[in-house]
């Protein structure tokens, strides 16, 4: 597990692993997998709250294929919040969900067209090795959280994003 900081590594090992190899076109097996996804997410979110590291909100439609929510990152005591969305691909869990932050589309090179975040070279090999044991919670912990930690400070420093309070202040001045 090269490429992640110690706290991410220790967190991810505490997220329960999944067992069912099923994707959204697999009927009853998918329902089983979806229950496992929820259990892992609930545990992860409880853990985050207990450690004072709550950093996302997430929910899915009834069939569990479309997920939406919010995620945030605190930089210099200011909280930057973004919409979060992704689809469960038809080939899941062989392929990981491609997490999108549509508001940041076009603002950073570490993003594919459409707002999909560009993951590190370490993520896909680790996902492949752990298929089908990793789920949405693992993707958030190993994919999105490190991405925010690396990109948000950079986006703020280069002026690509401005905190919402400062936006209002600027508007009031004008």
């Amino acid at each position, binding site marked *: 597990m090269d490429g992640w900081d110690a706290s991410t590594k220790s967190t991810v090992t505490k997220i*329960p*692993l*999944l*067992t069912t*190899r099923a994707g*959204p*076109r697999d009927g009853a097996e998918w*329902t*089983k997998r*979806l*229950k*496992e996804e*929820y*259990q*892992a*997410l*609930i*545990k992860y*979110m*409880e853990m985050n*709250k207990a450690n004072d590291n709550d950093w996302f*909100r*997430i*929910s899915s439609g009834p*069939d569990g*294929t479309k997920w939406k*929510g919010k995620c945030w990152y605190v930089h210099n005591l200011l909280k930057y919040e973004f919409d979060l969305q992704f*689809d*469960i*691909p*038809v*080939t899941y869990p*062989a*392929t*990981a969900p*491609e997490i999108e932050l*549509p508001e940041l*589309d076009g603002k950073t*090179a*570490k*993003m*594919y*067209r*459409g*707002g999909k975040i*560009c993951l590190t*070279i370490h993520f*896909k*090999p680790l996902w*492949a*090795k*752990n*298929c*089908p*044991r990793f789920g949405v919670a693992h993707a958030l912990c190993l994919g999105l959280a490190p991405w925010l930690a690396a990109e948000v400070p950079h986006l703020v420093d280069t002026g690509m994003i401005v905190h919402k309070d400062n936006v209002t202040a600027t508007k009031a001045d004008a």
Partner: protein
Amino acid sequence: MAGGEHLEKDDVKVAGKEKRVMSSEVVDSNPYSRLMALKRMGIVDNYERIRDFSVAIVGVGGVGSVAAEMLTRCGIGRLLLYDYDTVELANMNRLFFQPHQAGMTKTDAAVQTLSGINPDVILESYTQNITTVEGFDKFMGSLTRNIKGESLNGKSGVDLVLSCVDNYEARMVVNQACNELGQTWMESGVSEDAVSGHIQLLIPGETACFACAPPLVVASGIDEKTLKREGVCAASLPTTMGIVAGLLVQNTLKYLLGFGVVSKYLGYSALKDFFPTMEMKPNPQCTNNSCLQRQREYEATKPARDAAAKAEAKRLAAEEAEAASVSLHEENEWNICLLDDEEPKDVRERIPDIPSSSGNLPQGLFRELPDSEVLDKSVISSESFVDPEGDLEDLQRQLEALNAL
């Protein structure tokens, strides 16, 4: 999402009601004269058949757009084009698209250019993502319609699918669709550092599928760790992409028109001008159920295949015997002697033993991703796994409660 307003659109453009005659007449005004010459020279038996074929191109980027242009110029019958992206100025280091097309969807821009080059080709453009559940259904729907637009009840209506996408996820989706349809396809790829690429033929049940083993890539000769990735997702070159598109369409023409040797896997290393080849058998433990189903079907045809091979060997032997019995000219006043023009059957350097999907790889090739590992149960306790019990609605309520906190 870029080009979102086009997402649901299927644009089926049947250009020109009547196709021009595919003439072999050698005049400046005949667009097919140089292609039909392949027939005169004996390279291809019946070039006109190209018009009977439908080819689906998934991904109309640096490789797919060039492949589409090549097939259009060859007079292919029908092209189905899939992409959800739009043309950008950042694409101008590659071939095909032009600056004035920036902002158009890649599929619309491609149809615009291709229909101008050859109005005989039927072009269908699908501006959509194929990896989502709805996108996949539409993808399958389009692949199972014939040239007249009639649904074939789940049977494939295309002759070949070309994967020209730039990511593992989309390749796995093409693999899924082709495994379900029993549809032969070819995969292509260019590395993120732009200095290597590959093409691969996949025949469901007969060759390894894309999920049988982690994807194969060509070593560029650069140490991955020294590769600088700051501020970039991928590099690209028009040369590497054009070469890979050329290799892909060459293999396509050989496959469709039945000439030469169709490559199973052909790699390209630009830094060393090295072209590794290999073949891969399917993995009996593949995690893709449709692949396993196709493997069983292929296995069931073995007696028929063996009989056909035997009959072919017999026919060849008889032909050879007949050729040997034809006597040479009795008089040869000028001592004319012809060189033996019999070509070796297979000019490629063959790899002596065909690796299975998990076997050893030829030099210069490596696996892009690791195999999934079996967990050591002595290290990971059962408490590390989720509890399989529980009610879905109850779990959804629990998560919503946490969301509200």
